[in-house]
């Protein structure tokens, strides 16, 4: 008897600890200070390409951003139809990644994966037909890559590594040439419709 009671308490303690552990793992993400999605919303409207200000001391849109990488993002909203993303990719180092609001990276393509410098992407949900849907691999797409998004709302992020400080301006300029806008299904040429509104953050130099 003398022996069994402490054993009972230890067992109870371990079971309780296990339950509390599971509860904590499930609730900690919701108590997160601010996830990436929350930090991007104040920077501007959806379906617009927005340059993030480069990381500087005490100021960075997301924690631990690469100081030698320039970032631009587009929060896409597919509720009114597919969204089209266009960019002229100047080098093989560029990375374009698509995320759900939880930060799940469901698609990524690098400059090196592409045959051409012109990147033309349509983001659509599985039930939104885009011309001839089904083109998913860059090599079989004539012009346009269709990315099937598992979510209605998400974010596309372009990363452009900078080689030296003098090249930063060139990279920033190239990022300004990217666009993100609702896709019209009728054939048209939505050129330079990209930045109707000034990025409210001012895409710092």
């Amino acid at each position, binding site marked *: 008897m003398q022996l069994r009671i402490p054993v009972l308490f230890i067992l109870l*303690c371990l079971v309780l600890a*296990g339950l509390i552990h599971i509860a904590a793992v499930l609730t900690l993400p919701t108590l997160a200070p601010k996830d990436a999605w929350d930090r991007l919303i104040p920077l501007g409207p959806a379906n617009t390409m927005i340059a993030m200000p480069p990381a500087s*001391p005490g100021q960075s849109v997301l924690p*631990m951003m690469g100081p*030698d990488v320039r970032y631009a993002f587009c929060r896409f909203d597919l509720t009114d139809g597919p969204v089209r993303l266009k960019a002229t990719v100047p080098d093989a180092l560029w990375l374009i*990644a698509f995320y759900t609001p*939880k*930060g799940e990276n469901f698609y*990524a393509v690098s400059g090196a994966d592409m045959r051409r410098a012109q990147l033309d992407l349509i983001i659509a949900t599985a039930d939104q037909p885009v011309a001839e849907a089904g083109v998913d691999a860059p090599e079989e797409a004539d012009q346009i890559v269709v990315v099937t998004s598992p979510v209605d709302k998400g*974010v596309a992020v372009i990363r452009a590594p900078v080689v030296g400080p003098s090249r930063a301006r060139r990279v920033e300029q190239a990022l300004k040439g990217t666009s993100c806008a609702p896709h019209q299904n009728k054939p048209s040429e939505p050129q330079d419709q990209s930045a109707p509104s000034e990025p409210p953050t001012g895409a710092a130099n």
Partner: protein
Amino acid sequence: MRTLLALVVTFVIALVLGISSAWYMIDRGTPLTTTRVGPWSSWMSEANPNADLYTKAHLARSGRLPITSTTARYFTARTDSDGRDLTSACEYSIQGGALNARWWSIAVYDDQGSVIKNPSERYSFNSEDAIRHSDGTYRISLATHARPENWLPSGDGPEHKLMLMLRVYGPRETDANGIGQIPDDRLPKIERIACS
């Protein structure tokens, strides 16, 4: 009465154990979720839609938006190669060689994940701008005051903790799970030189 006390103690211990283990596994990771090589640790399934709950919790708390490990790898270090915390009070020598990837960069941050103010506005060195020796290796000096070769300023002012991040874009080799491979011996060594 004694039983009640024992119950309370049991509950308190369970609370501490449960929460601290959850925090540790989310913040620092375990062999289930992270690889550790010397001072470097990397979350293998970060940003993967099929990631486990710990990795998902870690990502949500970090506020970052990383790319999955097929396309990019991120390694963080909070200690030197001997396991002592990185601090602005000490000077370090970071030595490494070429990585089998398209691009890499080593950046230093404070413990809030912000780059550190310095007059030369130098926050990182990458595969293109680090000065290298003829054998392809490089040496970065992480120090408060200017150093020859590659000086990565750790900032002046009050002593603060430091964090290094090595980001590797486009690893050229992947394993069966599609995780970009960086051989262990290729990751840079972080050697403490002196402390003030």
